[in-house]
């Protein structure tokens, strides 16, 4: 019986659901699908699943991952079919496969790819492109406030250059643009899309609306995890 790795989507209103809730929801979907999952031993048994980096609230994705160990022999294709029949249209398994990689999904993620839609009444493509290339090439430094272990706010300097691999904007309509971005992710930290948007707000122009879609998680060779 192989461990099954799955790429799944989380779109529409499901973008408002936290990582922990997604975890539980997927486990319940496994139950609904009548699939026999493997459980941990012990006092409070739990389903053996593991997930990729938590997606921030408000971001849609078509590139989320989880692995699961089963107690029955089920081909990945079957797993996917059974799961999709009990999952909502906003969350569907896109791809399933046997996984023999012993590294955790998180350890395998090196990059995250996003498409960000922005709208602004004073959208200025030149200013936007200037800012984006500055972020990518020379780097823009900003302050991130974080709570330390003693729950005190501390400042941390972030240089965009260290976290961005690719950044490009295209006009996509009246007052609308689309930004493609590849961020470097690691277990010690990464840049957040929100921070990118805030820099645009602060340094270029005010945004009226935005949408964020995570397209995929990529490994160190810039290949999709699945």
């Amino acid at each position, binding site marked *: 019986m192989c461990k099954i790795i799955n790429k799944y989507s989380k779109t529409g209103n499901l973008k408002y659901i936290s990582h922990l809730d997604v975890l539980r*929801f997927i486990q319940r979907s496994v139950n*609904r699908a009548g699939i026999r999952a493997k459980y941990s031993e012990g006092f409070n048994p739990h389903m053996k699943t593991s997930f990729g980096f938590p997606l921030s609230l408000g971001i849609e994705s078509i590139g989320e991952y989880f692995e699961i160990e089963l107690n029955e022999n089920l081909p990945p294709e079957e797993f996917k079919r059974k799961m999709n029949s009990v999952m909502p249209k906003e969350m569907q398994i896109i791809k399933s496969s046997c996984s023999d990689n012993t590294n955790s999904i998180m350890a395998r993620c090196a990059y995250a790819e996003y498409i960000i839609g922005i709208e602004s009444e004073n959208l200025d493509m030149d200013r936007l492109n200037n800012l984006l290339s500055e972020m990518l090439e020379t780097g823009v430094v900003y302050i991130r406030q974080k709570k330390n272990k003693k729950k005190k706010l501390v400042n941390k300097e972030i240089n965009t250059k260290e976290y961005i691999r690719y950044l490009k904007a295209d006009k996509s309509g009246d007052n609308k643009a689309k930004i493609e971005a590849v961020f470097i992710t690691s277990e010690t930290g990464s840049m957040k899309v929100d921070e990118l948007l805030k820099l645009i707000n602060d340094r270029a122009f005010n945004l009226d609306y935005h949408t964020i879609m995570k397209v995929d998680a990529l490994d160190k060779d810039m290949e999709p995890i699945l």
Partner: protein
Amino acid sequence: MIDVKKLDRELLSVEKPARYVGSELNSVVKDKEKTSVRFAFAFPDVYEVGMSHTGLHILYHMLNSIENVWCERVFAPWTDMEEVMRKNSIPLYGLESKDELKEFDFIGFTLQYEMSYTNILNMLDLGGIPLKSKDRTDNMPIVIAGGPCAYNPEPLHEIVDLFTVGEAEELLPELLGIYEKEKLNGFNKLKFLEKASQLEGIYVPQFYEEVYNEDNTIKERKVLNNNAKDIITKRIIKDMDKVYYPDKSILPYIDVVHDRVVLELFRGCTRGCRFCQAGMVYRPVREKKSDTLVNQAESMLNSTGHDEISLTSLSSGDYSCLPDLTLKLLDKYENDNVSISLPSLRLDSMTFDIIQRLQEVRKSGLTFAPEAGTQRMRDVINKNLTEEQILGPVETAFKLGWSTVKLYFMIGLPGETMEDVLGIKELSYKIKDKFFARPKEEIKGNLKINSSASCFVPKPFTPFQWTAQNSIEEFYDKAKMLQREIKDKKVSFSYHEPKLSYLEAVFARGDRRLSKVLISAWEKGCRFDGWYDMFDFDKWMEAFNETNVDPDFFAKRQREITEVLPWDFIDVGVSKKYLISEYEKSLEAMTTHDCRLGCTNCGVNHRLIGGACPHVQNNK
């Protein structure tokens, strides 16, 4: 539809945005062009509380099973969301369609507790709907309300157009049927209300008038409309195996209070505790067959993927097929990591081997509700529970390895003395002694006894409906004394906020004059009053002052048996004569036996079901 983009822009700024977006699994989205009646099931508390309520799931799917009806949900937005909505002019909307409340035919509130009343006003206001029935025109939604607090609907009489009294599974479709016909004929609200008021279990407050005596008690109730009944009789479902039950339930994405399959074993209760409104108004007991329940559990598990089943009812341990049902469920699900829990477990009526098997899946603490600390007091309230019946099972439980015990008590019960209050300490300590009275090598775990006391609130349709509530000071005195006296590290004591219980008592037994207090309190900013950190007692006192209503009149006053009570026009089946005799017996600490052992003539049999109660027959 509301401006969804505007909403989307703001949602990330509020706590738990998933409360406000819908699209959960098994929620129902219909084509609104193809439906003729749109119903908003409104729960006047936050999403997580509302979604934990079984009645919501039943009525939601029941209404949606009617082809031309679309029922959606709406919950009270938390204060952060309210602020966002007001600032951005986003009206309150149905979760499924995102259409604003104004577009619905009905807004149906469920009244689970008195302290949610201000949320009703707030929700109407957020929906742009006038608060008072008389200010709502024919093209505005009909505001209806039902649930346990509708047994005394009067405090909401100005706000709600019509109340449903009793169980609504059969009543609601009848009501919507009448509405649909009226809508086709050119809708006229008054005409609709007149037709509706002819249905059993419907109360239209505007068809009545309350007349007061000089001492502020009620002189009489006048019926103002020929179509309205003198007495409103509660509705009951006769056959629990045949009544509508959904084959699926909505699965919330976020953690809700009760996140599991809930099986309702039966309705009603035979024990006759004198403080318990539910025990009186839900009579008689009507059980579901265990096969019905096993089937319902299966479809619920299949549709949600939950891994826990909880068996609920007023007193689940009294279910006549309990061993049969639990064994069936255990055999079926034990290997699937599905656990079974019995929340209102009475240890005196349940065999321990079953409990033990239940605990193999998930071990939880033991809960016990002696309600009062002394035997005399337990006899006054007719708890029918001796000290041996408490200590015996607790001892067994300790032997089996339990070491956490929760004990629920009430303070301020009628006729209570300081000795009775101290009985709470005594009983908690006796339980502690049972733990340590065993040989050293048998003592396992770290004993923890959590005793908590709530403040007694006299409720309509109970034998205590005439009694005075303790004053806030008396409650504090009693609670603080217990806190001082209970010094043992193994026993912890906590109590409910007396000010909240006082207000609850005012509204539980209030009359029409409270409508204006409610509106005034809401205007001052009261909402989520049941949430202790939101509750603002001073604002409420201002509201009473400004409207010239004396809250003590409702909470602290002892009524004469002959007084006309604001809810006297409602017939719950149990006769007033019976309540009076139970009240008189309580004064002498005389008990009344459980009516499974023989009918005690509460009156519900010949008034509502026309024949002996089924659970009594079964015992013959």
